[in-house]
C-alpha cells in the first residue's frame, strides 16, 4: 500500500448491519420464539429442537414422544410450532437462510419418523408443482421455494431444472396441483412461461402460475394469463396459504404485497 490509513470511514460507507444487529441473545429469549413456542412439554422441547435445527435431538425426542403421544399431535403441536418460530425469526432478520434450511431438515426428519409410526404419509396442506424453465440451469431460487413450501407443510412435486414445457404441462394435468411455480433467470429461457400458460389455458386449466427469478419482472409476468410475479422465495408459503383460501392469479397480481406482508421488487441480489 502506498496510501495511508483512512481517517474516518463514516464518510465512505457505513456497516448498517453491524449498527443494527445488536448483541447476541439466545434464540430462546427472542420475542419471536417466545411468542410462537408451545408452553407444555414435550411440545416445547420438540419445537425448540427444530428452531435450533438439531436433527439428532429432534429424532430422539420424537421417538420418545411417540411412546405416549399421537404422531399427528407431535407434528402439529410440536414440530410445526417450531417451524412457525423459525419463520418469524427469518422475517425479523434474526435468523438467516441456512438456519431455516437446517431447521427445515430437522423438522422433515421428525415428520418422517412420525409418518413411519403412522404407517402412512401425513396429509399435506396442498400440492404445488415447481420447476425451472427449459435450458436454464439456475435452480437455487426454485430450491428455496421448494424448501419453504415443504417446511410450511405443502406437498411439493419438484420437477427440477431445464424442464421441457411438455413435462410441466403433463405434471399439472396428472398431479392437479393447487399452484404451479416457475423460475427462470435468463432472458432466453423465460419465454417458456407464456407458452406453458397458453397450453394450460387451451386445456381449460385455470391455475395460478407463480413465476420468479432474476430475469423476470412483474410487468412481463403479467403480460400472459395465469401468471403472477413471485418476488422472494420466502413468500411462497403465504402465497400458497392465500391460494388455498381461494385467491386466484388475478387477485394475486393486485394484492401481492398485502398477502406477503412486505414490499419487495424481487430484483437484485
Amino acid at each position, binding site marked *: 500500500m502506498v*496510501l*495511508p*490509513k*483512512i*481517517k*474516518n*470511514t*463514516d*464518510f*465512505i*460507507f*457505513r*456497516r*448498517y448491519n453491524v*449498527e*443494527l444487529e445488536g448483541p447476541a441473545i439466545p434464540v430462546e429469549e427472542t420475542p419471536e420464539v417466545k411468542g410462537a413456542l408451545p408452553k407444555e412439554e414435550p411440545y416445547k422441547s420438540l419445537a425448540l429442537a427444530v428452531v435450533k435445527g438439531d436433527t439428532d435431538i429432534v429424532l430422539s425426542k420424537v421417538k420418545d414422544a411417540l411412546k405416549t403421544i399421537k404422531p399427528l399431535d407431535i407434528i402439529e403441536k410440536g414440530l410445526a410450532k417450531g417451524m412457525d418460530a423459525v419463520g418469524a425469526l427469518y422475517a425479523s432478520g434474526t435468523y438467516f437462510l441456512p438456519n431455516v434450511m437446517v431447521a427445515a431438515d430437522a423438522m422433515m426428519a421428525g415428520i418422517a419418523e412420525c409418518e413411519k409410526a403412522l404407517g402412512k404419509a401425513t396429509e399435506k396442506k396442498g400440492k404445488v408443482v415447481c420447476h425451472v424453465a427449459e435450458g436454464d440451469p439456475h435452480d437455487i431460487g426454485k430450491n428455496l421455494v421448494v424448501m419453504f413450501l415443504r417446511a410450511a407443510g405443502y406437498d411439493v412435486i419438484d420437477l427440477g431444472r431445464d424442464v421441457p414445457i411438455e413435462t410441466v404441462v403433463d405434471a399439472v394435468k396428472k398431479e392437479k396441483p393447487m399452484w404451479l411455480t416457475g423460475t427462470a433467470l435468463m432472458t432466453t429461457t423465460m419465454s417458456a412461461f407464456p407458452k406453458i400458460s397458453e397450453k394450460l389455458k387451451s386445456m381449460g386449466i385455470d391455475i395460478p402460475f407463480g413465476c420468479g427469478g*432474476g*430475469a423476470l*419482472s412483474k410487468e412481463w409476468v403479467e403480460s400472459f394469463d395465469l401468471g403472477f410475479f413471485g418476488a422472494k422465495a420466502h413468500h411462497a408459503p403465504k402465497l400458497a396459504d392465500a391460494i388455498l383460501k381461494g385467491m386466484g392469479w388475478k387477485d394475486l397480481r393486485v394484492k401481492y404485497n398485502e398477502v406477503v406482508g412486505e*414490499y419487495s*421488487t424481487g*430484483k*437484485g*441480489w
Partner: protein
Amino acid sequence: MVKFRYTKMAYADPDDMVFGHAIYPVFCKNWNIQFGAGYVVPEVKVAPRPGTGDSLEKLKAEHEKITRDACDRAAAIGIPFFMIEQEHVFQQTYNPKWAGEITALQAAIIEEYVSKYGMKAALRQTVGDIRVAEKPGGLRESLGSEYDRRIAETVEECCRNGASDICMETMGGKEVLDYGCMRQDIRAILFGIGYLGSIDMEYVWDRNVKICSKYSTNPGGETNCSGANTLMFVAGGLTSHDFPHTVAMMGRAMAAARTLVAYECGAVGPHKDCAYEGPIVKAVSGRPGAQEGKQAVCAHGDIMGNTIAAVCDVWSNESVEYHSEFGGTTPAVWLQATAMEAALMNTAIQTGQAKILRDLYTLTDRYRDPQGYCLSYDNAWRIGKALVEYGKDIYLRARAAALEAGKIMKEAHEKREVVLTRFELDSLERAMAELEAMTTETSRWVEKCIADYKRKVPNFKPENYGL
C-alpha cells in the same frame, strides 16, 4: 431582483477547487445532510414510466417504488448519505396538488429509512418549467400565463411537503437559442442564453427564493439545460455531424453567466447536475454544485464524464427510466453507481489524495474534446475570471466568457493539445470573429437583437422578458 452581481472570483486560485468542498457549504433542513462540506453526496434520479402520468394514483405508486428501491439499496451497500432528485414530469408541475402529495410521500419514505438506519439524505424536487413562449401569456404570470401561475404554486407545494431543496431548468431564451443552434448563429445563441436567459432567470429565481424562504427549504439552483445542454446534445459525439463542439462550448461558457443569476437572486446551491457549466460557476461563486458524467451514461452520451467530476459536490446519474435490470430496479442500480464513485472521491479526501484524483479525472477527458478541455477546472476558472470582469452586465459577461473559452480552445489547438477538425476550427474562428465584432454598447446590441430576432423567430416575444 438580483441581490448582487458577481464581480470577483470566490476562488483566488483554481488549485483550491476540489470535489466535496465548497467555500459556502449548504445545510439542509431535514435529514442532517450538507453539501460541499468535505464529502461528495451521490444523487439518483429516476423518471416514471410511460403511462404513469395518467393519474395521481399511478404516479404516486411509481414514485413510491422509485424512492423505496433507492433507500433499500442505500441500506444494502452501506451508503452513508445520498440525495434523491425528482424531476417533475409535466403532469406533476401542472397539478400542484399532485406535486405536493408526491413530495410528501417521498419524504415519508425517506424518513422511514433515516429513522431505521440513521443515514443522511435529501429530497430534491426539480419543478418543470412548463411555460411555452407561444402559448397565451407566454412566460409571465403577469401576462396571463396559466402555466407560470401553476409553476409558482407547485414550488410552494413542494416546499410545504418536505422537499429539501428546489431546483429548476428554466427555458428563458430558448426560442432564440433554438434558432441559433440550428443555424450556428452565435449572436442568437448569445442573445438567447446570455441575455434573455439571464433576464428570465431573475424573474423565476427571485420568486423561487421568496417561496422557499417561507419553509426553510433551500433554493438550489439551475442548469442551462435549455441552452447549453441542447447545444452539447446536438453537438453529440466525435463522429456526429450536427453542431461544432467548439461553438457548443462557447454556448456553455455563456451559460455560466446565466446559471449564476440564480445565486445572485439568493439561491444557495447545489445547482443542478446537468449544468456542465458547473466548474465555472463554482470558481466564481464558491457554492457547491451537482454534476453528472461517467455514471450518467444511462441518460446521455458524454465525452467528459471523468473531467466533470473534478470539482463536484453532488454526483448524479442524471436520469434513467424506472425499469428492472438484472442487478435490481434502476433506482437501486443507479444510486449504487453514483454512490460507488462518490465513495472513491470520499476515500481520496480521507486519505489526503483528493487533488491527485481530481487531476486524474481532469486529465482523462481533458484532451478528448474541446469541451472537456475548457471545463477542466483550471480553464473553467479562467473563463470565470473573464466573466467577472464584466460581472455587472449580463450581455458583456456572457460574451466575455464565450470569448475566453474560444481563446482557450485556440491555444489548445495551437499547442496541439486538442487538435481540432476543420469544421470545429472554422466554426470557432467564425464565431470568435463575430463575437469580437459585436458592439460593447449593451443597449445598442440588445435593440438590434430584438429587432432582428423578432423577425426571424416567430415565437420570440420581447414582452415575455419585459422588453
